[in-house]
């Protein structure tokens, strides 16, 4: 069974540009989660999508946004990039069955903002 995949592996942008990160969940999973892992800040929850809808978002500014497509893949967009957006962005997926679920993580996208 294929795991969660993310692209690109690495992304280099300059301040003020926009970045788009992509995630494909495990087959059969309908939920996608995004986390940011920045140096010194640990793993922070960004966004949760399920069945195409945004279900929850973390304490991040509106320039962090995303969407989930009908095939359950997801995109994270970061507008007006700032130096502190440099981080590893991790995507996870799960299948919700009305109770607790396990999130399985992809390998991440390393975003560097110069």
């Amino acid at each position, binding site marked *: 069974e294929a795991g969660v995949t993310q692209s690109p592996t690495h992304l280099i942008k300059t301040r003020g540009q926009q970045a788009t990160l992509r995630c494909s969940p495990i087959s059969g999973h309908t939920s996608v989660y995004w986390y940011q892992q920045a140096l010194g800040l640990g793993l922070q929850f960004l966004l*949760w999508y399920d069945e195409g809808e945004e279900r929850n978002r973390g304490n991040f500014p509106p320039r962090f946004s995303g969407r989930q497509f009908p095939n359950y893949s997801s995109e994270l967009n970061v507008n007006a990039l700032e130096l502190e957006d440099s981080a590893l962005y991790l995507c*996870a997926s799960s299948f919700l069955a009305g109770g607790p679920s396990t999130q399985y993580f992809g390998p*991440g996208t390393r975003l560097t903002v110069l």
Partner: protein
Amino acid sequence: AQSVTQPDIHITVSEGASLELRCNYSYGATPYLFWYVQSPGQGLQLLLKYFSGDTLVQGIKGFEAEFKRSQSSFNLRKPSVHWSDAAEYFCAVGAFRGGGTSYGKLTFGQGTILTVHP
């Protein structure tokens, strides 16, 4: 709000020695607890999870963890560490009921870096 504390930032053990990584959580309802491992530059791999039932849970790679509600702890253990276990370990708590700002997300501890000496 939920929170997780991993008191040890860095632990060094010799290969073959036993290991215990500490995790304390704060959560108002029934906690759903996880341990993940991350190798440098990689994503997170699930080691084990606790949802309910037996408080001693077995995971992959010979790891186990014990849920102690009275101590709000979920410590990870391994009887004999291998050099390949060197990595960073994260404890997490999940909220799956009640809505609110915590709903659906995992809250992670700061991580514990494990170094294994030959």
